[in-house]
């Protein structure tokens, strides 16, 4: 098995302060990786830098595309980066308004990436969108409703459909359950777990909830003050944490 993502000595600065630094890891096909840590530890900065949304100041991120070609993000032309973002990646945001187009219908939200890939057949696009609305338990009858009329949980499920419809190989998610009530969260996580299993997509997800990591992730990175202080199999990190900060995090939860 080959990695699809290689990260070496990655760092991102804000002025003279580091948002994240000295990050090294590899991600393999179909792996689910969670990035955990307290607020301000650099999780979102790392995620955005991995996805090429922020330019790295040090180190490199290399991605292997479906053809087996490697791309180092910092040397990639913007047009090429956008092509990868559209065809090979997805990005699910914490706030639906950042990840959805609130003014257009749910169906159009799901179809957008397909159209960007050159799909033009209207009936086919509608059928695919309907199928995905069913998959994410929104229901095809809501095809023409704008997401502004949806609940928070439905909006997050719509983001999942919108991203997975083009069968990306890697999806980034920044606290996708952050704004959801616990009961709504459980449904979202159950669905996500199933879709990720079925599609074999690799996922890098930021969460501050260790229970979410336990449920979804093969692997976990623990961040503190911009650095990865511990990395490994999720169950090992949670059951036998090594770093003082990870031990503190794990001991602070009731049960994960």
């Amino acid at each position, binding site marked *: 098995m080959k990695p699809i993502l290689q990260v070496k000595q990655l760092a991102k600065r804000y002025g003279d302060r580091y948002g994240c630094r000295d990050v090294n890891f*590899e991600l393999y096909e179909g*792996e689910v990786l969670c990035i955990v840590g307290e607020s301000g530890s650099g999780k979102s900065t790392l995620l955005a830098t991995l996805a090429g949304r922020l330019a790295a100041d040090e180190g490199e991120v290399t991605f292997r595309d479906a053809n087996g070609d490697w791309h180092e993000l910092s040397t990639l032309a913007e047009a090429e980066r956008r092509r990868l973002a559209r065809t090979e990646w997805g990005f699910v945001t914490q706030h639906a308004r950042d990840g959805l187009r609130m003014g257009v219908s749910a169906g159009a939200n799901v179809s957008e990436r397909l159209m960007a890939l050159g799909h033009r057949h209207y009936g086919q696009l509608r059928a695919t969108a309907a199928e995905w609305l069913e998959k994410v338990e929104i229901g095809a009858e809501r095809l023409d409703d704008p997401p502004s009329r949806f609940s928070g949980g439905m909006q997050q499920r719509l983001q999942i459909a919108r991203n997975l419809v083009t069968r990306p190989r890697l999806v980034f998610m920044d606290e996708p359950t952050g704004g959801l009530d616990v009961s709504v969260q459980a*449904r979202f996580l*159950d669905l996500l777990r199933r879709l990720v299993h079925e599609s074999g997509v690799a996922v890098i997800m930021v969460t501050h909830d260790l229970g979410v990591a336990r449920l979804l992730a093969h692997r976990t990175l623990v961040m503190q003050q911009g650095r990865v202080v511990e990395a490994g199999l999720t169950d090992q990190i949670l059951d*036998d944490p090594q770093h003082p900060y990870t*031990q*503190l995090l794990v001991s602070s939860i009731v049960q994960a």
Partner: protein
Amino acid sequence: MTLLIAARQLSKTFVLHQQDGLELPVLADVSLEVHAGECVALTGPSGAGKSTLLKALYANYLVQHGTLNILRHGRWIDMARAAPHEIVAVRRDTLGYVSQFLRVIPRVSALDIVAEPLIEQGEERETARERAGALLERLNIAERLWNLPPATFSGGEQQRVNIARGLVAPRPVLLLDEPTASLDAANRAVVVELMREAKARGAALVGIFHDEATRDAIADRLFTVPLARRHTKEIAT
């Protein structure tokens, strides 16, 4: 018989940073080999490190020293050093673990929890569910419970779901942590039978069995986990 587990000179000390870095030596220089078709029962008083040894073999706990080789498709994989994706692969098709307690997954039914390891091995969903159902039936889980998430099940029912999940996909190495602890005699007998079947197809088993009857019925040999902590204390005084 083929060697399937070769653990050599394992040492494990817990360092509790929340308790001023208190060090708790649990395993010191422990070596264990298990062959195909063999069942080894771990013994020792409570707190001796039996569960710790099983969890180390599963790469759920880290060890500071030693090698933890598991034979996978004719190749040795050192679980103490393998990359996470390799460990996940070993667990998927080679190394099964029946933990002491079932970890329920919100909203996921008992049947799907049991079927999951088969689906991960590439089995068709419907076939996997059929095999899961057959095993739950053998373990006397009433069919009306199959479609419910096991969160509300009794301790014994949860344990049987856990055993079914651990044994449904035939894997050549099985680790079992007190699999019969909260079962009645009839269900204990079923579990013993399942473990015997695993042995008969050539699996290597390492188990912790709280009751002697189960241990005698299944184990070929006992392995006493040496007391690391007492050892260091004796040296200190």
